[in-house]
Every structure is written in C-alpha cells, then in structure tokens.
C-alpha cells in the first residue's frame, strides 16, 4: 500500500519524514488579491524580433549550453549601467556588462558574469543596480568576496567607480556608467 505525506508526496516504507516537505517549508498565506497576470501575447513579437543573431547571442548560447532554464524577459531585461573588466587570469582584459537589476557573478554556465577560476563558486556574488546605486553582495561563496585592499571578506557593500573586486584568484575593475 503506497504511503503519502500531507502534501501528497509518495513515501518509501522506511521513511518517517517526507524529504520533499523538509526542503520547502513555505506556507505563506496572503489575502486574495485582484492582481491580473493573464495577459495576451501581443508584444511577444517585438521581444522576439529583438533577438537577432548578433545581439546578446553569447549570453543566449551560454544559457542554452549550460542546460539552465532562463527567461527571455531576463535576457533583455534592462539597459547596461556598468562594466567589470578582468585584470588577470585566463579572462584577462575581458569586459562584462552589468545591467539594471541583479547580475550574478559565478562559475556556473549562464551566469550574468561567468568567471573561469577554480576558486570561484557557481553563484559567488551579485551586483545589483537599483535607484542609482550599485550594491555588491556575497552569495555565501566558499572563498569569499573581497573589495579593494581589505583582507576581510564582505557580506554586502556599496560599489563606487574604479573599485577593485576579488573573487577567487580573479581581480575585476568596476566601472559605472
């Protein structure tokens, strides 16, 4: 006789607790809202037509090659607001665009800023541009994120033009628009 937990997950006979339920304990309730998300498809044409082969093709290919699902809207999400330039390592001299909103720095394929270094975590840090300010956040990386000359890893810091970031063995210069 098959056994199921309170969320309808099938349980092995020997299990007392459901591993699926332990993973997600989200039980948030909110009042019924009138928000409408059912929208028609007009406008998708324009979004897709912007996807010509020359524009952002690299980031699209990287997303596909990594097998990671991404949203079309997030690829074209926003204008460029700054750059990072790698100062050393195999990507020395390469520049990375930073866009409005969140930019994830890491070694995972499909990262907004994909860095090749063994000491860099898959999702290592993020740079967020909001309301005219850049904030750098470490995403619980294994080896930490460092800013300028500090020997102490940061949790979250505000970035200013020409700041120097260090992730793993890679140093990056930050330039804002």
């Amino acid at each position, binding site marked *: 006789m098959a056994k199921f*937990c309170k969320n309808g997950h*099938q349980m092995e006979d020997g299990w007392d607790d459901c591993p699926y339920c332990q993973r997600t304990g989200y039980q*948030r309730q909110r009042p019924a*809202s009138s928000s409408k*998300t059912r929208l028609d498809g007009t406008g998708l044409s324009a979004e*897709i037509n912007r996807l010509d082969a020359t524009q952002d093709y690299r980031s699209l290919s990287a997303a596909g090659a990594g097998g990671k699902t*991404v*949203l079309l809207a997030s690829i074209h999400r926003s204008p460029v607001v700054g750059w990072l330039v790698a100062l050393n390592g195999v990507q020395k001299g390469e520049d990375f665009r930073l866009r409005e*909103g969140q930019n*994830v720095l890491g070694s995972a394929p499909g990262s907004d800023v994909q860095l090749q270094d063994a000491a860099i975590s898959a999702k290592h840090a993020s740079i967020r541009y909001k309301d005219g300010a850049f904030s750098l956040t470490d995403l619980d990386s294994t080896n930490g994120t460092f800013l300028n000359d500090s020997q102490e890893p940061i949790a979250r810091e505000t970035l200013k033009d020409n700041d120097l970031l260090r992730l793993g063995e890679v140093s990056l210069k930050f330039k804002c628009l």
Partner: protein
Amino acid sequence: MKIRGDVELANLSDVGCIRTVNEDYFLYAEPEDQSEFMRRGRLLVVADGMGGHQGGEVASGIAAQIVRNVFFRSERDSPVDVLAESFDEAQQAILDAAGSSEELADMGTTCSAAIVKQGWASFGHIGDSRIYLVREGSALQMTEDHTLVNELFSRGAIAREEIENHPQRNVLTSALGSLSPNAVINFSEEPMPLKRGDVLLLCSDGLHGLVSAEEMCSILDGGALSDACRSMVDLAKRRGGADNITVQLLKVKEEWHDRSPD
C-alpha cells in the same frame, strides 16, 4: 494522507546527475471531508524553479503551496477559475518574495496544475513543464511549452527537427515571477472527461527533454504506477540527467461517467 480508491497516485522527484539542488517541486491534494471533496476535487501540481541565489527552489515551492492553499479555500465553483485565482496569487507571492530579498531576486518558476473533479479534468499552465493525458497507449500533450523555440517553430522560423537541439531551447517566454508584459498563462477551455484507465502525467522538462511521450506510454503499459515513475526517472538519468526530474502520475481506476466519454 489518505487517497480515495477510485484513483492510483504515484510521484517522484530526483535531483538528476549534474545539479546539486533540486529546484523542482510538486504536490498532490484532496480534501478529507467528503462534501469538500465533491466540491473541490483533487489537485496535482508540478513546478520547476529557476534563477536567483537559491531562488529557484523557493519559487517552485511558493507556487505549488499557493496553488494548494487557493484550491482548499477558493469560493469559486469552476476549477479553471480556481486555477486562475491560484496562479494570480502565486505570481504575486513570488514577486513579493523576490522583491524582499537580494538572494531571491529574479527567481521564477514554471507551474503546471490539474484539478480532477467528478470525473472531469481542468488544467492551468505556464512555462515548459507539461501535462499529458495517456489514453489507450497514446499520449496527448495538454499543454504548449512557453519556450522561445516553440514560438520560433510556430512562426515557421525553425523546423521541428531543430527544436530539440536548438542552443536556446532553455529560454522561456513565460514563467511565474516574470514581470514581462508578454507573460501568458494558459487554462483549458473546457474540462476534459476522464475514463477508466486514463493516466494524467505531469512532469518537468528534466523528464520530457530526455524521454519521449512514446517511451512514457510504453513504460506505463502495465505494472504499478510507482514502478513507472522510477523507470521514467531512471531512463532520464541514464541519458545524462542534466536537469532535475519530476513526474507525477494519476490513474483512473473506476468509470466515472455513466456513458464512457468518446
């Protein structure tokens, strides 16, 4: 949870062979109270999360739980209206959560849900998780993937053969959590009558990307449903298991309609 004997249920979710985190989530619900059960029916959900730092697993969990909460408390009678209400709330909850935390920013999730009520099935769907109806050895896909390649194919820009290996096959055009004004959610226009032997199959792209509908049908041909879940997941893993793999199966064991639907 006790499941009424007119159906057989089985489900399984696996992190796969490459990923370290399972961002898929799924659930099943049916009210214990008989009058509530007659009013609401039973619910199946599969969601595949993405984006943000740890955001993917949070987004899929939020979506499934909100859909479940609305299923149990909605005042609406029509299952499609219940699903529409639940998807709206899930969308808002994901956007709220994403806006409250740097680590959850930009998260999103697919969501495929079915309500089976008094022998009729209704569907709600966004993203590229799928719902199939397997009847007499054939699988009918009830959902259209909201993917860029599907959109390009429907416009005639690429051929069907190009879909599977297209470099942009993982790009979604719609997901819960997307602020894009072009995001769409699809709902079944009419409820579908189910008959004895039918199997509803909900799965994430970790399964349907590696196992064809024909293969799913042949695995379902006889044997226990829980064995079929395991066989499907194992087959996807033997083929690389690059993504998380989730499958949920519900088989109709009794004839619900006086006259068998055509």
